[in-house]
C-alpha cells in the first residue's frame, strides 16, 4: 500500500451493547485529525449515512453472531477485508450477548417463543466460530490504549506493504 492511500475502514456491530463503538468515538476525541488524514471511513453507520460495502483494509467486528443473517453478513465482510479485527467481549468470547447459551431449562422455556419468533441461531457464537479473525481486542468494553496500540500496529503493517 502506498503511504498516501487512505486505509479503508469498516466498523460493524452485531449482537452487543455497542460499548466499543462508544469507546472508539471517545478515542477519536484525541486522534480525529490524524485519523481524518489516514482513514477512509468507508462503512461506519454511527458516523455516516452513505456507506460503501466494497472492500476494507481493516474491518472491525463488534458483537456476537446471533442470527443466520449475521453469519451471512460477517462472512461477506471477511471476503472483502484484508484484516478482520474482533473488538470487545461479545465478539471475542461471545458474552454477555450469548448469555442465553448458558440458561437453565426454565429460562430457555421462557424465551423459546422469542427465539422461534425472530428466527435466531440456537446458540450465539463468537466471531471466530464463523470467520477467521486476524486480531482480537478483548474487554467489556475494550481498553482504549490496547485498541489504539493494535490499530497503530495494523496501520504500520498496511503502510509498509
Amino acid at each position, binding site marked *: 500500500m502506498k503511504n498516501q492511500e487512505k486505509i479503508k475502514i469498516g466498523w460493524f456491530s452485531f449482537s452487543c451493547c455497542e460499548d466499543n463503538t462508544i469507546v472508539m468515538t471517545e478515542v*477519536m476525541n484525541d486522534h480525529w485529525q490524524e485519523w481524518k488524514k489516514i482513514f477512509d471511513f468507508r462503512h461506519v453507520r454511527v458516523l455516516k449515512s452513505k456507506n460503501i460495502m466494497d472492500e476494507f483494509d481493516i474491518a472491525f467486528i463488534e458483537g456476537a453472531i446471533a442470527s443466520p443473517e449475521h453469519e451471512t453478513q460477517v462472512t461477506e465482510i471477511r471476503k472483502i477485508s484484508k484484516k478482520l479485527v474482533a473488538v470487545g467481549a461479545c465478539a471475542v468470547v461471545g458474552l454477555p450477548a450469548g448469555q442465553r447459551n448458558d440458561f437453565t431449562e426454565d429460562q430457555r422455556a421462557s424465551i423459546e417463543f422469542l427465539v422461534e419468533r425472530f428466527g435466531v441461531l440456537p446458540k450465539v457464537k463468537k466471531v471466530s466460530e464463523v470467520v477467521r479473525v486476524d486480531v482480537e481486542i478483548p474487554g467489556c468494553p475494550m481498553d482504549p490504549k490496547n485498541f489504539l496500540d493494535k490499530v497503530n500496529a495494523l496501520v504500520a503493517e498496511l503502510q509498509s506493504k
Partner: protein
Amino acid sequence: MHKFDLSLDHITKVEGNASLHISVEDDKVKNVKFIIGENKRFFTEAMKGKTISAIPQHLSRICGTCSNAHLLCAIEACENALKIQPSKQTEILRSLTMHGLIIRDHALHLYLFCIPDIFNVDAFLDLDENDPIQHQILHDGFDIKSAGNYLATLIAGRSVHAIYPVVGGYLHFPDQAGVDEAIEKLNFIRPAVLRLIEIFKNCSFHFDRKTHYMALVPDKTFGYMNGSIITSQGEKYGEDQFRSHLEHVVLPYSQASAYTYDKEGYMVGSLARLNLAKDKLHKKTKKSLDKILDLFPSTDIFYNNLAQAIEILHSIDESIDLLKENTFKQEPIKKVEIKESVGIGVIEAPRGTLYHKVVIGADGKIKEGEVIVPTGQNQINIERDVGILVERLLPDTSKDKIAFEIEKLIRAYDPCMSCASHFLKVKWNKKTNKKIKN
C-alpha cells in the same frame, strides 16, 4: 395520487439497529412500522439467580452509551429494596457521574449525529476545516465529548460500564489534582456549549404537533436522579409506582416493548425535562440562556436537540459547583442486609425516564426483574410522527427527500435501540399480527 412503500433498512447515525417501513396509498399514510431490530440478549431473564452485587454491572451491559444510567438505576433499585440510604457524598458522586454521562452522550448525539444534517454533509468529519465556523465546530465537538469523558472517568472509573459505583457507595474517590483538572476542562468547554446552543436555537428544522410528555422532576435543582414523575397533563406519580401509570403495548414486528400513557403516545427525554423543570436549571445556566428558555415548553421535537445542548450547559455549571464545594474522602461501603424485598429505581437517563425493578429472594438472589427504557416509551410517538411528517411532505416530495426527512426526525428523538430491544416479556398472539395490549 401516490401509492408506494418506502423502506429504510438501516437508519444511520443513531445508536443501534433500527429500520422503518411505511406504506402510502392515495397520498395517505396507511401504515408506519418503526422496527427495532437489535437481537435480544435477554438481560431481564438472565437477572434470575444472580446476586445483588452482580446486578448493576449486569444491567449496565444492556447499552454501551447509556451504561452508566443503567448502572445507577439498578443500584437505586437494589438500595430501595434493601432500605439502604446512601451517604451525602455518594449522592454527590452519583450526580457527577450522571453529569459526565449527559455531557458525553448529548455531545455525541448533537455533533456526530445531528450537525451533519444542518451543514448538509454526510459525516461530522466531513465538515471543512478550512472554513472558520466549521473548523470551530469540529474542535468544539471533540473538546466537549472529551471533557464529559474525563469527568465520568474521574468520578466513576470509566465513561462506559463504570467500575466505581456499587450498591452502598463508591469503590474509589477522586483526588484533588483530578478535581482541579476537571474544573479546568469544564470551564474551557463552556463557551463551546454556548456556541452549540446557538446552532440549535437557530436551526431551521421544525416539527410540531400536539403530544404528551413526562419526566422525573426533582423537588429542588434540575437533575436526573430523584423526584416525582410529572406529566404534561399535570399528574404526579411517586417513583415507587412502577409502571402502574403506563400501558404496555406489543408491536409484533419489533424486538422491543412500547408504552402508552392514558391510551396515548407520549415522549420522554431532554425536551420533556426542560418543559417540566426549566425553572430548576442552575442559575448561571439560566442567566446565560436568557430568552432562549422562553421557547419552552414546546412540543417541537427538534427542540429536543436544543434541550440537550442546554442540559450540557447545566451539567457543566452544576458539576463545577459540586467539584468546588466538596472535598472527597475515603468512605466505607454501606453494609447490605439481605431480605426478601422488591425495589424500584427511576432515573432520567440521557434519552428519558428509565425504570428498573428487582425482586430479591430471602437468599439475596434475584427472583425476577423488569426494565423500561426511554426509547420504548417514545416508540409509539415516533411512528405517529413519521406518519404525520410524510403526509405533510406528500405529494410533491421525492422519496429520497422523504427518507432523509424521516431520518432527521428520528434522530431528533435520539433513540437507543441497544436499550430498547431486551424487554419484550409478553407472549405473542400467533393468530394475529395486530397490536396486543398487556
